[in-house]
C-alpha cells in the first residue's frame, strides 16, 4: 500500500511528477488522483467540523468502487485532507466498526483503511452486533432498533473525549447508538465526524 502512484487511481491518467516534488518539499502525501478527478469532489465548507465533503456524483462513484468493488487502494484518495483535518485532533478517534462477518466478506474495514492511509492513530472499543443496514429501515423501525454495538471485551472506556468517525451520515442512528454506548460506559464527551455529510 505504500508505493507512490504513477497514474490517477480513479481515471488512470498519468500523474504529473512536478506535483510530487512539491509534495516532497511541503511534506505532503504524493498525489494519488489527478487534478481533474480531485475537482469533481465537493468540499463541505459550511460544516467542516463535522464532515469534509458533500455527497455528489463523484462521491457516489467513489463509494461504489471503494466499498462495493473492494478497491482498497482508494483509501488513499482523501488521505491528505483527512490528515490535515485530524492531525491535531485531541480526542481519541474511534472508527465505526463493521460486523466481523461483513468485514470478512469485504476483506477490509473501509473506515480503518481511510485512517491508516492518512496516518492518523485510532483505537477500537466497539463491536458491531448486527449485519443489517440502517438505511433500509423506516423511522419507526429505526427507533425500535436493538443496540447496534456492544463494547469489546477487556477494554475500558475512559473519562475523556472520543471522536467517532464514519463515512456518511444518513439517518444518524448508527452514530447515535455508538455515542450513547460510550457515554453510558463513562466517556466524558463524544463528538462525531464523517467523511461525507448526509
Amino acid at each position, binding site marked *: *500500500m505504500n508505493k507512490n502512484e504513477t497514474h490517477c487511481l480513479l481515471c488512470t491518467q498519468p500523474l504529473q511528477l512536478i506535483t510530487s516534488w512539491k509534495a516532497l518539499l511541503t511534506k505532503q502525501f504524493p498525489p494519488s488522483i489527478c487534478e481533474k478527478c480531485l475537482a469533481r469532489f465537493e468540499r463541505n465548507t459550511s460544516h467542516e467540523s463535522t464532515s469534509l465533503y458533500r455527497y455528489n456524483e463523484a462521491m457516489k462513484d467513489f463509494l461504489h468502487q471503494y466499498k462495493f468493488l473492494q*478497491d482498497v487502494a482508494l483509501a488513499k484518495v482523501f488521505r491528505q485532507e483527512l490528515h490535515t483535518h485530524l492531525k491535531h485532533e485531541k480526542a481519541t478517534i474511534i472508527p465505526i466498526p463493521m460486523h466481523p462477518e461483513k468485514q*470478512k*466478506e*469485504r476483506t477490509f474495514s473501509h473506515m480503518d483503511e481511510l485512517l491508516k492511509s492518512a496516518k492518523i492513530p485510532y483505537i477500537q472499543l466497539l463491536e458491531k452486533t448486527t449485519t443489517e443496514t440502517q438505511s433500509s429501515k423506516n423511522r419507526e423501525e429505526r427507533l425500535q432498533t436493538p443496540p447496534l454495538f456492544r463494547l469489546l471485551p477487556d477494554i475500558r472506556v475512559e473519562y475523556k473525549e472520543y471522536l467517532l468517525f464514519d463515512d456518511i451520515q444518513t439517518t444518524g442512528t448508527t452514530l447515535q447508538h455508538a455515542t450513547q454506548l460510550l457515554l453510558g460506559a463513562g466517556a466524558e464527551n463524544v463528538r462525531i465526524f464523517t467523511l461525507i455529510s448526509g
Partner: protein
Amino acid sequence: MKYKGWLLPPALRDFHEGRIWLKNHTPFHEDDIKRAIERNYFYIKEGIQTIPQIKCNRCQNEEPQQFTHFECSKCQKTCVYCRHCLNMGRISCCTTLLIWRGPQTYKQKQHQFEWAGQFTPLQQQASDEMLESVKRQRNHLVHAVCGAGKTEILFQSVHYALEKGLRVCIATPRTDVVLELFPRFQAVFPKTNIHALYGGAPKQEGYARLVMATTHQLYRFQHAFDLIIVDEADAFPYTFDQTLQTAVQKAKKPESPIIFVTATPSQKLLQQHKRSGYSFIPKRYHNHPLPVPRYSSLWRYENSLNKGKIPLKLQRWIEDRLTRQEPFLIFLPKVALMDIVTPLFQIIHPDILAVHAEDTDRKEKVLKLRNEEIPGLLTTTILERGITIKNVQVAVVGAESSIFTASALIQIAGRVGRNQAYADGDVVFFHHGITVEMDEARATIERSNKEGFPR
C-alpha cells in the same frame, strides 16, 4: 461417489463451459458448485499467481503498478488484488477461478441461415478466401476499405463453422460495434443462440454457439472458441493494451485460427498476414471510389476560437452545409476545445450539438443527426468509426493534432459517401500545418482507389 443423487444442472454447464470465472461470483447455488467440484468438473486456478512473478490469471495483467497489497480480513494475511480487471469482480490471492472441464454441451449442427444479399465480385472473393482459411485453420486478415460491406463477408465462414459444431466468437474493442452487429447476426442466424457480451449487458440464457463480445469480455474465457473474428482490430484500446491481445489468444483454443477484419490494418498486422490468409477489398460495395480528403489551412485556429471567433473558412463551410441541407460532422482534437467552440457554432445554428466519449446521450444525438432533427454534430474521435449517416459531410478541425493518426483520418474520411444514392461528399482537413499522418491517410485512400479502379 458421495452425491449419487445429484444431477448436473444443464444451465450450470452451459454457463461455465469455456469460461474462466470467479468462484464467488458464479450465478449458481453454492451447493451445486460444491458438488460439481467434487465430481472434478472444474479445474481450479488461483486468482493471482505470484511465482515466478505476479500475474492476474483472469486478465493476464503483469504490471506491478496495477496490483495493490493490503491486510486482508478474509485470509488474515497480506493479500494482493488486481486493479486492472476490477470492474469484473475483484480478483485477489484469496479468490479462486473456476474453469469447466466437465461434460460438454451437445453440439447442435443445424443452423438456419437467412441471408439473401448479393455480393460484389470482390466481396465474394474475400468471403471465399476467408472460408478457405477457416477450413485450413490458418489466420486471415481481411483488409476492406470503409464501406466495403465487411460484415456480410463474415456470414459464410461463420455459417460453415457453426454447421461443423464449432463455437465462434466475434470480438471487437468497441461496445458500439457489438450492439450494431448483434441484431444483424441474429437476423441471419435466427435459430442460433447468440450472446452479446459487453460491460453492463443483460443476463443471457443457455449455451451460446456464437458469442459477440467486446475484447474486454474475453478476459472471462479460456480455450473456449474454435474460431475468433476480431473486428476493428486496430481500434482503441486493443492495440494499446497488451492484455486485450493476450485475452484473444487465451479465449481461443490453441489450434484455433483468428480472423482480423479492418479498414486500417497496422504495418505489423499486414506483415503477419501478407504470406498467409489475406484478402483486400479496395472498393466500396456500391462501386464508387472513396472520397479523397482535401486540405484547407486554418492558421492559428486555436487562437481565434479561444477569442470567440470562428475562422472564416470554417464558418463558410458550415454555412454551405446549412444552405445545402447536408448533415455534417466536425471532428475536434480535444474535449476542452469542443467545450469552447460549441456555443460559437450554436450562434450559427442553435441546434448544432456536441458529443464525446463520456456523453451518456451519445446514441440519441447521433440518432438525431441521422433523423435530420439537427443539422450537424461536433465530436471527438469517438465517432471515427461505426457510424453511417446518409449524405454526411465531414470536416476535421486541427487535423495536424497527434490524436489524428493516419488510420483515424482514414476512418473519419470513411464516414462520407457510404450510401449508394450519395456516393460522394466533402472531406476537409482544416489544419495548422500538414503532417505525415495526413499525407499518409490521403495517399492510402488514393492507392485504394487506384487499385479499385485501374485505368
